[in-house]
């Protein structure tokens, strides 16, 4: 292992090690060191690995970015944050700036017993518990994140608590040219219910690197709607690894909108661990210019009577490139599994490209599994119909494209404010979307 990036992050680790939350606690220090060693042994993933075949991290390999130094910190103003927030009116807002919790920009009025704040505080207060993020699933990037994470979201909703208005969590890149490693732990106890809106955004259009680690645990009958809006612009490398454990009758609903990164990669693994668990995954990716947006999902049906549905939609313009790899594993005991998957793509340019692959691994015999992938262009009959009603060609294209993408939001329709904000985010990032009129009707 030769590479520049490994040496670079080994040096960074040495520099920041003693500054990390809870540093000095032997167990914690050891956990971080081991993670770093694992990363150093593996190195960054390369396209020789099946899982990374279509997504090259050569840019990161060549030019790794440092963690931010304290003296470089510039706190954005609240006005700046609210201006870019997808839900500026959110009652509960937790803001992380360059990977660290920013209490002055955050506010919440959550019920007693709800813990919503900085994971660094929890780790500093109770270092003996270690990082509540460990994953049996070893991966070099996850290990790098574990070693270098300075902070992240700590969210625990106690049993039976239902939070009615969405919690907005903003990960803001304020100063360019840095690496951030936010790591978050989310736990919904029995019957808890919440909608979490995670927004990743940059206040600059320079290079940045984010390696994001998220671990979600849903106890039985819990219900989490997890929206992720990724809009960091064309020069950010955004790699996210999310693992979700879903207990009996609990529901995990993910809506991911990947709207802008030079390289964006979402690894989303869902484990349906007990009977009646359900996962609903909706996603849209809109690569344009030279963006590369990759979604790898794994839905693992461990127990009988679980259901999952995945629907991902790609809109690929200019030299944009998309990757969708949807894996469904039905384990031996997982009888009466119902697993659906679909991936539909709209290619708007000759230079755009999509690699889509379903991957079904079924070891039980009494299961219903379906999958389908399509790649198409805008339908000329639809465009003519709209034009024949006086809608000009550019608007007709934008409208049909928007309608195609917006379907991934349809499950959020009942949450009106969120739904309309996300539709707006979607159409402002859509090829030609600016010509669309107010879509609130």
């Amino acid at each position, binding site marked *: 292992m030769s590479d520049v990036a490994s040496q670079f992050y080994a040096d960074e680790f040495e520099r920041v090690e003693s500054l990390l939350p809870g540093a000095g606690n032997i167990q914690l220090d050891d956990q971080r060191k081991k993670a770093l060693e694992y990363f150093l042994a593996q190195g960054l993933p390369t396209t020789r690995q099946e899982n990374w075949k279509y997504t090259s991290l050569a840019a990161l390999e060549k030019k790794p970015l440092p963690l931010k130094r304290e003296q470089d910190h510039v706190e954005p103003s609240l006005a700046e944050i609210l201006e870019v927030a997808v839900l500026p009116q959110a009652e509960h807002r937790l803001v992380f700036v360059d990977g660290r919790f920013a209490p002055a920009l955050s506010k919440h009025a959550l019920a007693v017993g709800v813990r919503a704040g900085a994971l660094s505080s929890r780790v500093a207060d109770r270092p003996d518990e270690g990082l509540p993020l460990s994953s049996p699933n070893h991966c070099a990037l996850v290990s790098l994140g574990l070693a270098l994470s300075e902070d992240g979201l700590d969210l625990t909703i106690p049993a039976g608590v239902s939070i009615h208005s969405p919690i907005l969590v903003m990960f803001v890149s304020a100063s360019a040219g840095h690496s951030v490693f936010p790591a978050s732990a989310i736990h919904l106890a029995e019957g808890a219910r919440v909608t979490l809106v995670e927004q990743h955004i940059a206040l600059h259009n320079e290079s940045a690197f984010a390696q994001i680690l998220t671990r979600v645990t849903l106890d039985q009958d819990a219900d989490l709607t997890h929206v992720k809006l990724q809009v960091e612009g064309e020069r950010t490398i955004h790699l996210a690894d999310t693992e979700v454990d879903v207990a009996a009758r609990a529901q995990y609903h993910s809506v991911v909108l990947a709207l802008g990164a030079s390289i964006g990669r979402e690894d989303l693994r869902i484990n349906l661990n007990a009977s009646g668990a359900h996962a609903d995954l909706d996603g849209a990716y809109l690569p344009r210019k030279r963006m590369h947006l990759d979604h790898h999902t794994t839905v693992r049906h461990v127990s009988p009577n679980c259901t999952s549905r995945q629907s991902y939609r790609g809109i690929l313009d200019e030299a944009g490139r998309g990757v969708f790899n949807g894996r469904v594993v039905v384990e031996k005991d997982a009888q009466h599994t119902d697993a659906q998957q679909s991936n539909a793509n709209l290619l708007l340019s000759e230079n755009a490209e999509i690699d889509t692959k379903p991957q079904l691994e079924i070891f039980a015999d009494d299961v219903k599994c379906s999958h389908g992938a399509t790649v198409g262009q805008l339908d000329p009959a639809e465009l003519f119909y709209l*034009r024949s009603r006086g809608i000009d060609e550019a608007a007709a294209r934008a409208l049909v494209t928007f309608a195609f993408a*917006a379907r991934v939001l349809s499950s959020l329709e009942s949450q009106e404010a969120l739904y309309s904000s996300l539709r707006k985010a979607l159409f402002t990032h859509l090829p030609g979307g600016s010509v669309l009129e107010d879509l609130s009707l």
Partner: protein
Amino acid sequence: MLHIKDLTAEVDGKPILKGINLTVNAGEIHAVMGPNGSGKSTLASILAGRDGYEITGGSVMYQGKDLLDMPAEDRARDGVFLAFQYPVEIPGVSNIYLLKAAVNARRRHRGMQELDAMDFLSLVKEKVRFMEMDEKMLYRAVNEGFSGGEKKRNEILQMIMLEPTLALLDETDSGLDIDALKVVSKGVNSLRSPERAMILVTHYQRLLDYITPDYVHVLSAGRIIKSGGPELALELERQGYAWLTGDQKDAPSKGVAQ
């Protein structure tokens, strides 16, 4: 208002229209009848501006302008409206959004103020009631999952919202039961005025019981082979097209004489 002169057109090198001549004046209703495959939809589509046809000769003037030179959207804004034989489903775009965008595009073009949300809503609701439709359809995706009859009513709803100058109705009557046919005819008749003209493309005489045309033309194999008054449609119903086209398959059938 509309002057079609020696219009010839082909699709994929195959001649479809072989010299159409037709003049339509303001206030007139023309019925274009003819056997399947004779080129009726092709003519209507070319007038509305659909791509994919090669115009090999002739001209079409509309209100003194070269219609064939205008993109489809400009024709629509200038008052040309096509009610589709097969209305297109547009998933994800609601009917009300399309109606509002279409009405305002036309109003802007005429130098009128756009309708605000309230005025638009009360207007559209009134028209929906007039067409005996369910208000809920306004919030459904355009034509998606609509029955054949609902689609045709929806076309007429769009038409009466847009108040076109030249309406082209392509087989709006086909697939309608008698009640739907009455409602659709009511919609069409409500637009009759001295400033407007209509071309009704139809296979059957049935529609013409409710909307009396001023002229009837028979299109066969890409040519208008006969023109006359409303009595020509009745003649066609009795005799089929065979006496005109000389083709046995165009003889009257049960389907025609219902």
